[in-house]
């Protein structure tokens, strides 16, 4: 995970495209400029980045469902709660479940679990559109190719 580059997902543990379910493991870095400011001498993962991690997990699932051909991004947050502080080096178990497939939008229930406890959960709306440019599409494919998979079949 590289917070400052918004590369949030490390390893896909489970992914069922038809069922709309994903589970991803991500480890927060020990050092990051983010932690220097949030907060000085008391580093914890900002809630907005917890939300981004959950968004990326569900977004990645949809991106793969659309064969990497469509651009998926956060449209709105219906609900979000940040229940535990997450420290540098924490292993995050990120879960996403698509609960509704609309036309051009999807709704997901997502959560972030640390040491068996829910650190954050949210209901989000993801928008699906065509990529704005061919370059953006190629670059996202390149970036996401760095994500690893617990089971090679998922790749």
């Amino acid at each position, binding site marked *: 995970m590289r917070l400052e580059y918004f590369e949030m997902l490390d390893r896909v543990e489970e992914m069922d495209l038809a069922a709309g379910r994903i589970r991803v493991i991500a480890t927060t870095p020990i050092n990051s400029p983010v932690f220097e400011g949030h907060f000085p001498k008391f580093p914890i993962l900002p809630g907005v980045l917890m939300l981004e991690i959950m968004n990326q997990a569900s977004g990645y699932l949809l991106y793969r469902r659309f064969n990497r051909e469509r651009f998926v991004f956060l*449209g*709105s947050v219906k609900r979000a709660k940040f229940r535990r502080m997450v420290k540098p080096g924490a292993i995050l178990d990120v879960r996403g479940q698509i609960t509704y497939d*609309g*036309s*051009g*939008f999807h*709704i997901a229930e997502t959560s972030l679990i640390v040491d068996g406890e829910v650190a954050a959960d949210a209901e989000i*709306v993801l*928008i699906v559109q065509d990529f704005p440019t061919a370059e953006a599409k190629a670059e996202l494919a390149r970036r996401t190719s760095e994500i690893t998979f617990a089971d090679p079949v998922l790749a």
Partner: protein
Amino acid sequence: MSSTFETVAQVISETSDIPLANITPDAHAIDDLGIDSLDFLDIVFALDKKFGIKIPLEKWTQEVNQGQASVEDYFVVKNLCARIDELVAAKSA
């Protein structure tokens, strides 16, 4: 049993916090009611659930963008109701 218009007006009112009295058949969702695209997604989600259909919002948007349909064809409330009636009829056919 509520008419399509009554149900749609109720959904718009509850979803977007617009007084029910302002939602008339001739009201334009964007120009008159001030509903933006993200609010409209919430309305579409609620209408999908209410009527058991999947409103083809992407197709509609594409048709408007390509000049094959006007914004009014889909976003004036009475026209939206007519499209919903067509989708419900197609589903039960």
